[in-house]
């Protein structure tokens, strides 16, 4: 996904000389190409994210489209008030690009985990929140947010995620992508958990359950229509995300369901309200947080039997 973003932003910068990329001194072996090709549209702002966000806002208020790149906690939480006041309050054309969703930086420890960022970003007025599920979505999302003159947050995974979408898939901000049709349940996944969601969907299919599978790449604006339709049609909604269960996809979807008075089975798969203070691979940390595809499959089966 990270590679897809970088390739896309390079192409965009070629066409638009007013597109800038700022980094908080990160992007080794990733951003060198951009740096070399577009030296006048690139700035390393050093390890100083509050200033970086303010500078991005100043550039945007002067007519630039500004992408700001860093690891998720450093580009979302560290400069949160700058994002609120300088970017969102002024509706500045700044795109925050966070790398390392969820437990991507698992071995680096909990300071580098990204499990609160969706909640933090989606509560900000004017902010668009997009969490691509595969490299194709990352490419399309990068193109799409560059065309909207508003603040946006792009949440990226960093391992070489596989392409999951069919060739004729269509991407649009604020519209979930229906990947599989079914009537027994709906799985809504965001970010790179989409890959696990595909496995879960297949597991359930083997057990005779026909599920709807939806990539919910945009958390805000939420595709309410699709949620309502799915809840009414399948009467069972399961959300999957590598993020806290507080304030993320599951919370957003459950709000839509409850506000519309739809009676259905609901479960949100995510990280419960705790820090994960253990080393290990991303898969390991997902597993101990109940996010392995086997465990998700098991819980869904249990929920649907009761």
């Amino acid at each position: 996904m990270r590679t897809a973003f970088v390739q896309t932003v390079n192409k965009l910068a070629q066409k638009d000389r007013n597109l800038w990329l700022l980094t908080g001194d990160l992007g080794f072996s990733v951003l060198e190409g951009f740096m070399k090709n577009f030296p006048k549209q690139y700035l390393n702002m050093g390890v100083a994210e509050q200033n970086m966000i303010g500078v991005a806002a100043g550039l945007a208020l002067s007519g630039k489209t500004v992408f700001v790149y860093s690891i998720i906690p450093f580009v979302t939480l560290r400069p949160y008030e700058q994002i609120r006041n300088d970017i969102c309050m002024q509706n500045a054309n700044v795109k925050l690009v966070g790398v390392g969703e969820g437990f991507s930086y698992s071995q680096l420890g909990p300071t580098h985990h990204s499990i609160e960022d969706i909640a933090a970003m989606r509560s900000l007025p004017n902010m668009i929140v997009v969490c691509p599920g595969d490299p194709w979505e990352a490419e399309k999302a990068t193109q799409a947010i560059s065309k909207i003159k508003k603040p946006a947050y792009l949440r990226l995974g960093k391992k070489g995620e596989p392409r999951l979408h069919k060739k004729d898939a269509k991407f649009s901000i604020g519209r979930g992508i229906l990947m599989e049709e079914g009537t027994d349940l709906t799985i809504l996944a965001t970010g790179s958990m989409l890959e696990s969601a595909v496995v879960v969907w297949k597991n359930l299919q083997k057990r005779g359950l026909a599920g709807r599978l939806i990539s919910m790449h945009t958390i805000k604006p939420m595709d309410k229509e699709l949620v309502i339709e799915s809840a009414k049609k399948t009467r069972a909604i399961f959300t999957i995300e590598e993020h806290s269960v507080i304030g993320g996809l599951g919370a957003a979807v459950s709000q839509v369901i409850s506000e519309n008075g739809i009676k259905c089975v609901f479960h949100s798969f995510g990280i419960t309200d705790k820090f994960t203070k253990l080393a290990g691979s991303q898969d390991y940390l997902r597993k101990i947080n109940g996010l392995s595809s086997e465990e998700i499959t098991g819980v869904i089966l249990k929920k649907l039997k009761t």
Partner: protein
Amino acid sequence: MKIFKKLILTSKQIRRDILKMVGRAGASHVGTALSCTDILTALYFRVAKVSPKNPKWRSRDRIILSKGHGGVGLLATLANRGFFSRKQLLRYCFDGTPYTGHPMIESAPGIEVTTGSLGHGLSMGLGMALALKADRLKSKVYVILSDGELDEGSCWEAILAAGNFKLDNLVAIVDYNKIQSFGTVAEVMDLEPLLAKWQAFKWGVREVDGHNFSEMLEAFGSVPFTQERPSVIIAHTIKGRGVSFMENKLEWHYKSPDNDQLKKALAELS
């Protein structure tokens, strides 16, 4: 030394407007607005290229009041400069108006950025200075900071970056009135040696009396003080300047003048 009678009269008028506005609204921060009134007057009425009829004029100089709590002073200055009607000032802080205590872009034409939380303005000004250079515009960016604001680490991130990027079109003005929210700067968080700090961050520096137009205009006219460096003017000021019973009094960071006090204050500025 040249006396700038017209500027002095203008700043008196702005001070009177500030007092009437906070008095009517029962608003705070009058002391801080009075301390930077002469800086704002110098910038908007003499130094900066601005166009009240075309506030978004591409080649304008950008002025940012990073110390947003002086916003009442900015509104009064902009109205007196013709950016919007002075009559509107009487609606300051009233229900449903855009005239908030801390300035927003939406508050009035001529306001470049929304401020209020300290330590944001210099970074945004830095971004604008970078954009101006990229767009080959000769305009300058003026950012007015408070002394207490310099406690914010984000200011020093921006000060470091501006020196590093050699932004000679960026000018910071520190409204150094020596009093912050809960005590004197020296007591709360000493900034000294302030000039040396900016110098060490690769800025050209100058100290002036922030109520003396002759000194201020001379300094603004010499920008950049050092080639390929941003410039900072440390303006020594008096909190509550112009109203004897408000000068150097911490309480006027918070209090609003009652009718008698307002009468007395306006008489001093007549």
